[in-house]
């Protein structure tokens, strides 16, 4: 009888030990990759747009008097396709898709902000790191519900009925892209990209992007646009090298 107890205890001990070992291993893996600033490279460039740029779609805001008042004529220009004056494209997320496998990067502690302002999301496209805080602000004197619709992460849908309210959320898994919407104001929509590394940028008014402090190596760079889809290029950067990359999205590719 005692023999069995000994065996059982031994087995338990063995499994327990194994479990401990595993978690120790995990800890080691979690330690982050340090990028040597003296050898780091940069990939930068522009997102060009070719073809006739049609005027931005105008959204007529009617259901909420507060929102209507915030915009001339109660109209907001859609941000689905924004062609800048220098023929570049706004709201394109450029990021490293491949080439960083096996590396871990420290989470950005600084919160990214989504501001609900004038019944509109600012910014329209946001990218964050896994577990980076995302501060969601309501700057409007009306009710917004912020409704995320992820496939990988857990979703949320909560109300912010007052001006000045802020809530901080995080996403614990990599995911491209998570649509967000406000159901109260059906025209309010945006996207959040969640990445496991800090090498991403969203184009602004000049359509440019820069991925700095990259370890030298070969990377697949992807550019994502909500209407025009994705494009990718493979770029190799040596130590301290700065490379320029251009992507061109065409009208009619919608």
């Amino acid at each position, binding site marked *: *009888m005692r023999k*069995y107890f000994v065996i059982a205890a031994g087995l338990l001990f063995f499994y327990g030990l194994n479990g401990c070992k595993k978690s120790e291993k995990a800890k080691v893996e979690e330690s982050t990759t340090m990028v040597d600033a003296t050898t780091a490279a940069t990939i930068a460039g522009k997102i060009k747009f070719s073809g006739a740029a049609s005027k931005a779609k105008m959204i007529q805001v*009617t*259901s*909420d008097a507060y929102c209507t008042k915030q915009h001339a004529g109660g109209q907001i220009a859609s941000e689905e396709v924004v062609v800048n004056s220098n023929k570049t494209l706004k709201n394109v997320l450029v990021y490293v898709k491949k080439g960083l496998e096996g590396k871990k990067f420290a989470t950005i502690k600084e919160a990214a902000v989504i501001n609900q302002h004038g019944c509109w999301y600012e910014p329209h496209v946001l990218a964050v790191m896994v577990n980076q805080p995302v501060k969601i602000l309501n700057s409007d004197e*009306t*009710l917004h*519900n*912020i*409704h*995320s*619709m992820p496939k990988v992460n*857990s*979703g*949320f*849908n*909560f*109300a*912010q*009925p*007052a001006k000045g*309210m802020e*809530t901080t959320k995080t996403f614990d898994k990599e995911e491209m892209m998570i649509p967000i919407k406000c*159901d*109260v*104001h*059906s025209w309010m929509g945006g996207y959040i990209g969640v990445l496991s590394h800090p090498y991403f940028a969203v184009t602004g008014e000049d359509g440019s992007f820069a991925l700095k402090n990259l370890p030298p190596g070969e990377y697949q760079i992807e550019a994502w646009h909500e209407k025009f889809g994705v494009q990718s290029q493979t770029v190799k950067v040596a130590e301290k090298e700065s490379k320029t990359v251009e992507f061109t999205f065409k009208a009619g590719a919608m």
Partner: protein
Amino acid sequence: MSRVLWAIRRELLLILSILILSSPFLFADGKALYEKKCSQCHGIEGKGDGFAAEFVSPKPRDFTLGTYKIRTTASGELPLDKDLVRTISQGIPGTSMPAFEKALSKSEIEEMIRYIKSLFPKFQEAKPEAVKIGGVPRRSKELVEKGKELYNQFRCFECHGTAGRADGPSAPTLKDEKGDPILPADFTKPWQFRGGGEVKDIFTRLTTGLNGTPMPAFTGIFPDVKEDERSRWALSHYIKSLSDGHPNFKSVIAAQYYAGDLSLNSSASLPWNDAEEVDLPLEGQVIQEPRLFIPAIDLVSVAAFYKEQELLLRIRWNDRTGHAQLKQGKDSLPDSLSLQFPLERTAVAELPYFLGGSESKPVQMLTWSSNFDKIDKKICKGLNALENAPTSAEGKANFDQGQWTLFLHLPLNLKEFDFKTGEFVPISFSAGDGSNGEAGAKRSVSAWVNLVLQQSPSKMRWVWPSFGFVGALGGEMILLSLARKRRKQ
């Protein structure tokens, strides 16, 4: 000793091998049950695309998406098994989801849940936790008032409407997770609330939100957790109070005697609070073409006053889109309401066919339409055999905050409406929502109920008891004074 151990070991091995060998059958059980009981609506693969799906609204759940409305877990989380047990056992009010409590055993429901969860792999790793829900605070006037204040402050009206009738400005644009239109809850009908209509249920939905729908969680609005919770209790009590006194499902509409002016002009100012308002459920007409599977109007509420030669009916029903008919006027499909009486009234037991009567038992049908100021009358021998007829009935309707109110005036001295006091007059209702493409036979209908002109209560009913009371009091006083006198002597 060791022999006993060996025996135990052998038994254990035997049980284990039986379990292992039979496990495919154990799992298959849930699947087979699912295919038999659920797949008609939810589809063979659980994608919410069964053959019955097109006839129901809201649409059946797509189990492969993992979004569940009725939970006790935080917004965005998966449900607890307990939540799924509740939904399957009790069904979902106001939808096509029936209660399986009586049709399936407890273990069958558990098997089914195991299978449903296997359709969404995230269930395996997820560890959802129940949100904390304390005891329900007692309703008070202050709490309801506070709730009303918060209703406006939180802008619940954006979707649910100022009076809670689901006609808010954002209501027509709402979409579910699949992009299908979805309706906000009508707060005046808590018996249709998906997760139950009790104050605690309402509080739970405010705390968890309804995943896959536009309804968010109203948590974290006040930094103080206690205050945050109190705000949701107040709101829950207020929402519940919007249906006070309803539903009043009855099969008799009792018209009260009222001696004053019963004309249409003064109809709105009558003491309607004294009249009993009866709620009558309506269902889509699905018997003859064109059929209506997803009706927009599911309830009419009727109250009535009468005097010697007049009957005034007040018929109210919620319509999320009535304002559209007002705006578009005569060009759009109108909203309409009909009521029918048997043409010949014989014994109560012999009712005409409920859809417009028949050749042998015709009905007279009175119809009000939002694009026509007169009441239209037809003699019907079935819904396809309508014949115009003159009528002395008059109607007047107005639309306010998601509700139509129709006043219908019937002169009682004519042969057309020869209703006698105390007599049971069969009556039934049907409604059409133009915005929902409802017209003609494509409308929602009620069953036959009865209209009764209640005996006007005799004015002497106060006199005799009063006499009795005064007499008894006087008698006692005399006895008392006699007794006192005797004691003095």
